[in-house]
């Protein structure tokens, strides 16, 4: 079954300032979308607003999964509806290992007991094994299982760990916020291959990026250009190439 994420006339405010204006987007769970824009265009705001970060206030519009609004739901319930975000700056979690995080996440998403008296039945050995496999896919060794999430990780390791989490959770839609930043060209290649291997056109991908480097490895179906909080242009992969040649300033003039 193909799931659909719809963003309708979305307006978002941060501390009283409107950062997104009338965003419209439809993403199917077998599609790859790229959202490109310069710094401060509102890319991260879009990612965090969809996921329900408390700092981002939605003033107008709606976000729906399969026609059902998710705006009334707290962040964890949105995740349970199939939404995932890979953060641009994943925060350190002191004392919480990757294994603990994944265990808690899958307990909530997949193995939640039916009644409060029931104990959740979690296949820990299987989870550990899958974690090892997915870590290998992104080029991280298995010691990361027992490391505190993002504590002492390099920029690239943080991004890789986010993709491992996506692989374990297997969401319907994943917003990947500048997954390519902090990675060198080899890293981008490894992570891109891992993303494709994990998603297999069964996870709707929204790639948020400044540059088209990652798009050379993950060919998007659609490219959207975000400028000053608005989507000003939508096209195919060729749009990314055009942006690369002309730059965002050229687009601004065109708009």
């Amino acid at each position, binding site marked *: 079954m193909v799931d659909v994420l719809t963003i309708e006339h979305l307006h978002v405010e941060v501390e009283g300032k409107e950062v997104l204006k009338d965003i419209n987007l439809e993403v199917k769970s077998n599609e790859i979308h790229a959202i490109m824009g310069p710094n401060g265009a509102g890319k991260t705001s879009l990612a965090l607003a969809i996921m*329900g970060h408390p700092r981002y206030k939605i003033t107008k519009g709606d976000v729906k999964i399969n026609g059902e609004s998710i705006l009334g739901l707290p962040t964890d319930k949105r995740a349970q509806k199939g939404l995932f975000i890979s953060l641009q700056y994943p*925060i350190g979690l*002191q*004392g*919480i290992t990757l294994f*603990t995080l994944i265990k*808690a996440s899958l307990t*909530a998403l997949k193995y939640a007991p039916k009644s409060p008296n029931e104990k959740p039945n979690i296949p820990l050995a299987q989870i550990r094994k899958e974690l090892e496999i997915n870590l290998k896919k992104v080029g991280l060794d298995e010691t990361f299982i027992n490391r505190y999430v993002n504590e002492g990780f390099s920029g690239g390791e943080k991004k890789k760990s986010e993709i491992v989490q996506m692989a374990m959770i297997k969401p319907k839609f994943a917003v990947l916020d500048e997954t390519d930043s902090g990675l060198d060209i080899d890293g981008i290649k490894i992570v891109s291959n891992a993303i494709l291997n994990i998603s297999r056109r069964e996870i709707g991908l929204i790639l948020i990026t400044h540059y088209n480097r990652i798009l050379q490895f993950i060919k998007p179906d659609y490219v959207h250009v975000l400028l000053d909080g608005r989507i000003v242009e939508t096209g195919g992969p060729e749009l990314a190439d055009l942006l690369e040649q002309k730059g965002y300033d050229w687009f601004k003039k065109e708009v």
Partner: protein
Amino acid sequence: MTKVELSFDYSKYNFRDYVEYEVKFPKGLTEEIVREISRIKDEPTWMEEFRVKAYRIFMEKPMPAWGVDLSSINFDEFCYYARPTSKKGRSWEEVPEYIKRTFEALGIPEAERKFLAGVGAQYESEVVYHNIRKELEKLGVVFLDTDTALKEYPEIFKKYFGTVVPPNDNKFAALNSAVWSGGSFIYVPEGVKVDLPLQAYFRINAQNMGQFERTLIIAEPYSEVHYIEGCTAPIYASNSLHSAVVEIIAKKGAKVRYTTIQNWSIDVYNLVTKRAHAYEEATVEWVDANIGSKATMKYPSVYLLGKYARGEVLSVAFAGRGQHQDTGAKMFHLAPYTSSRITAKSVSKDGGRTTYRGLVHVAKGARGVKSSVRCDALLLDEKSKTDTYPYNEILEDDATVTHEATVGKISDDQLFYLMSRGISETEALNMIVLGFFEPFIKELPMEYAVEMNRLLRLEMTGAVG
């Protein structure tokens, strides 16, 4: 966002027994009561005189004007000695049924079978059960309740008792010295390594009870021992007082670790003096968790008396509504090349208050000293409070003394990150608090780590708001 209220599940510990005491003194403290305690214990004269002297010091010393608020302590309202039974069991069968039930509910005999080298259990003033594995006994390891040790090992006892914490050290050390009863006595001969922990469990059952156990640990050269104590009490409307003294002597190259999981109910004043003497190349580690009590004042100390001696304190505190945990550590570097490390972590919520109070002293002539102090406090809401009072007295120029302190709140970003993985807000808060305490929890034997995790598990009681 959802507003949640967090609280401890104390139900496991909050039960009481209705006991016929063999002996229970009337409330209040007089010299006559002090002498009477000594008499019914059939002690040597020197101990009776020690107690009486200490009692006079206690009466003279003013209440400390710093630390927690002690103004509502009324020394006349406490019972200073209560004996449930005169028998001390060496097997659980010998322990009276109702006391056995208490300790069984707390999981003690099961723990002993599984992973302890020895166990002591104290109920009010007296130790009711004491046992140590036979193979350790054969190696000369002594693990007894302190009263029995006074009778069976009078010479060692007299040589060390009161030498690390003298009665005039502070008002509550004086009080303990006057009315002490029970506690553990541990003697580890030269070169003997006790590889499993020895544990004592302290239980206050009666209302307005005072518990004043006295623990003395002597580790001969190159020996090793790990001692763990846990404490609980039922909740009453009025106060109880727990005032212990712990003395440790770690001789050359010896290694002693002392772990406390203090979970008194929230009507107990917990005013404890803990101190160790560490000789050349010896290591003393205090691992100290203060979760319960109404008010705690406790600053485990190490006197580093010989070259290359090492002291470590890992202290964690949790203060909820109506609680004040005033805890910390003291390190006295009195010899060259000694080193110390203090790590303090605290969490406050619902108006609870934590205080870190610490001292690092480097004496003149103690060259090459290294010391590091790190304090992290986490505040779960606006009503709660934390303060830090780090004192340094550095009298030698080449000492390396570092201090780091942080005060944090749980950030929206941390919660958001965990919740974006499908984890509920309550569970996310739980994970952050447990993660904050992780450096402490990982120092505990596995079974205690599980219990500690359970203890720290927070429950959602609020509603969506």
